């Protein structure tokens, strides 16, 4: 049964249509996945709660105050979105493998590249839905409470969050395509999450204290982290500058000016492309199934 009857032996060309078919399958499965709905609901509930609790008393401060809400949303995204995307990516292929559906899928006339890219696109679509649900809920709560809200900022933060999730999803899929079991993949994803959200920054902080790291090196080291790239791009969207972030922020403004946001976007894009590329290569080796 393993060798499909009449399967073509000549290598087919890569078919975008198949990627889209698999992507739709992945989205369909995500919409049946309890974990995915839990993530969506949790993120939307937290984002909504932030807009409700962070709304300032207009009589007290005159007007404005969305900056505070937005900063809280950014902090929430830093924690939650990498966790969602990493675990979603890491669980998916490894889970399919554990349940045997991956072997079944690969029996069909689809290439491994198409399967992996399709999976990635499908998960990216699911993350898009999760992120827009969260920010949509936050905006909806603000609008219903007629709290000060900057709709442009809201949408740009949603877009940045999705970009962050794309990078994290790529890393998640890379884990998924190199590791044999779903539980190992999940464990690794959690470790990566801990590293990008906490350990990386704490390490740089420690280095600053121990060696008085020059600000240029500090900026470069921090910028490598996609979560930090997301944060700095958000700070630029929020404040227009990194001025409030001390000497390293002033250095970055002085050195890169308006280019900081582009650097941050570039970092997230580089992580996405290299992680997905590495995942494709690892998955094509195909000795895990």
């Amino acid at each position: 049964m393993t060798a499909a009857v009449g399967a073509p032996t000549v290598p087919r060309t890569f078919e975008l249509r198949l990627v889209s078919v698999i992507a739709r399958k992945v989205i369909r499965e995500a919409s049946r996945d309890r974990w995915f709905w839990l993530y969506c609901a949790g993120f939307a509930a937290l984002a909504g709660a932030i807009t409700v609790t962070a709304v300032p008393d207009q009589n007290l401060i005159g007007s404005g105050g969305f900056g505070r809400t937005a900063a809280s949303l950014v902090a929430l995204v830093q924690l939650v979105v990498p966790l969602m995307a990493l675990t979603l990516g890491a669980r998916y292929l490894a889970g399919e493998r554990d349940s045997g559906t991956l072997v079944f899928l690969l029996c069909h006339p689809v290439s491994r590249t198409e399967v992996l890219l399709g999976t990635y696109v499908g998960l990216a679509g699911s993350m898009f839905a999760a992120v827009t649900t969260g920010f949509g809920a936050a905006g909806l709560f603000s609008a219903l409470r007629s709290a000060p809200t900057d709709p442009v900022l809201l949408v740009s933060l949603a877009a940045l969050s999705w970009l962050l999730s794309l990078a994290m999803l790529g890393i998640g899929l890379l884990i998924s395509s190199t590791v044999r079991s779903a539980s190992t993949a999940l464990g690794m994803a959690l470790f990566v999450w801990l590293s990008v959200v906490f350990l990386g920054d704490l390490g740089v902080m420690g280095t600053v204290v121990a060696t008085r790291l020059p600000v240029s090196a500090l900026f470069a080291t921090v910028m490598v982290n996609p979560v930090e790239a997301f944060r700095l791009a958000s700070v630029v969207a929020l404040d227009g500058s990194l001025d409030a972030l001390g000497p390293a922020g002033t250095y970055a403004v002085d050195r890169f000016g308006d280019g900081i946001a582009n650097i941050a976007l570039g970092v997230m894009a580089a992580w996405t492309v290299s992680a997905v590329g590495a995942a494709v290569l690892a998955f094509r080796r195909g000795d895990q199934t």
Partner: protein
Amino acid sequence: MGGGAPRSLLYAAVVAVGLIATMAGPVVAAPGEVSLQDVIDAADPGDIVTLTAGTYDGGITIDKPLTLVGEGWPVIDGGGEGSVVTVVAPDVTIRGVVIANSGNRLDRENSGITSDLSPRLRIIDNRFQNVLFGMFLRHAHGAEIRDNEIGGMDLFIARRGDGIRIWQTTDAVVEGNHVANGRDSVFWFADRVTVRNNHVEDGRYGLHFMYSDDAFVEGNVLENNSVGAFLMYSTDLTMTGNVFRSNRGPSGYGLGLKDVDGLTASGNRFVENRVGLYADNSPSKVDLYHHLESNVFAFNNIGVLLGSTVARNVFTGNAFIDNSVQVASDSTGGLLDNEWSYEGVGNHWSDFAGFDADSDGIGDIAYQIDNLFTDLIERYPEMAFFSGTPAAQAVDMASKTFPSLRPEPILTDDSPLIRIPAFPPAPMTTEATSGLVVLVASLGLLLAALVVMAGGRFRFSDRIVLGGTT
């Protein structure tokens, strides 16, 4: 004066003006016929010169007490050179005029209106457009600057001039002006100046006081400048009911104080600034205390930043709401020489984690700032780069959990207020975005989510059945 104009033309002008003057009392000037300078030269001291709508050549000098009144917004156009109007006489009033296009020489201080030895100069309800300096007044005791609209030149901020600059002028009143895109609004040696209900935005220093004593600053809105107001080397200043909002930049402060003695600050709002209030060597006199009472510090990166040697500031009845750092010192060492409660009334702190068992509105335990991450920033300023990250919060959580990591508190408020004290309403400044736009944007985001999720379920006719899905 009047030199250069052909004598016959001047006679004609004088006769014409004289005729009108004898008939109607005030002088009426219309553009084109006679130059505005000739009309001014021909007018008698104390005359009212009415300018009808149209454009007049600038570069004029007023050397006698006169009232210039515009009807239908006449324009005095400097043609991009020098100052537009120069006043060198007492009791001059300029009202209802558009003053446009000065030169852009910063070293010559090209201005919309420049004046010297001009006591009781009144500049009321004018519009300044594309001028380097808006107005530059010297020795204009008792000047009145009211309800003007001042827009600067579209230049790099250090190349711009000041919206309002006052030099060696006592008892001036600056009220109800709107200054945008200037550099600073500066008051040098301007004792007893009253600055009230002005709106200064998108400049460098919204208000800048140098050696100006007994000033009264009330109800101004200073937003989106580098610094809302910086007061230096001045004594006995009263600041009430001002709004300092979104004054940011690498050295952005809502209100900055340097060597100020005798400050009373109450009812001010410090919102979304990089630093709400910054004080350096204020008060400088050892027997003087500053009372900062009933102010709101909200959503700033740092609510209050004090120089490490600053002492004798008394904070009472203020509300510190969700500043990333509520209060900090600009170097290591505490702020214990300042007082954070006065006669049993402390301040409201949004991060106060105590309780009020006897329900008297005063927390039963003291509020302290002993934040490890803030302490680290004071020691290693580079650490500020991590403000607001989950890692920074982890550092603080660690210090709360393990008291051995906890730094010495930089301040203690023995009587923290449980509730936010009542404040009079703040002047509303930036108009809120329409809720409808926000609603549409949010529904758009939710719709996008639905579309993507539904995309997976959509049945295409050429769909290949894979993985057993039906």
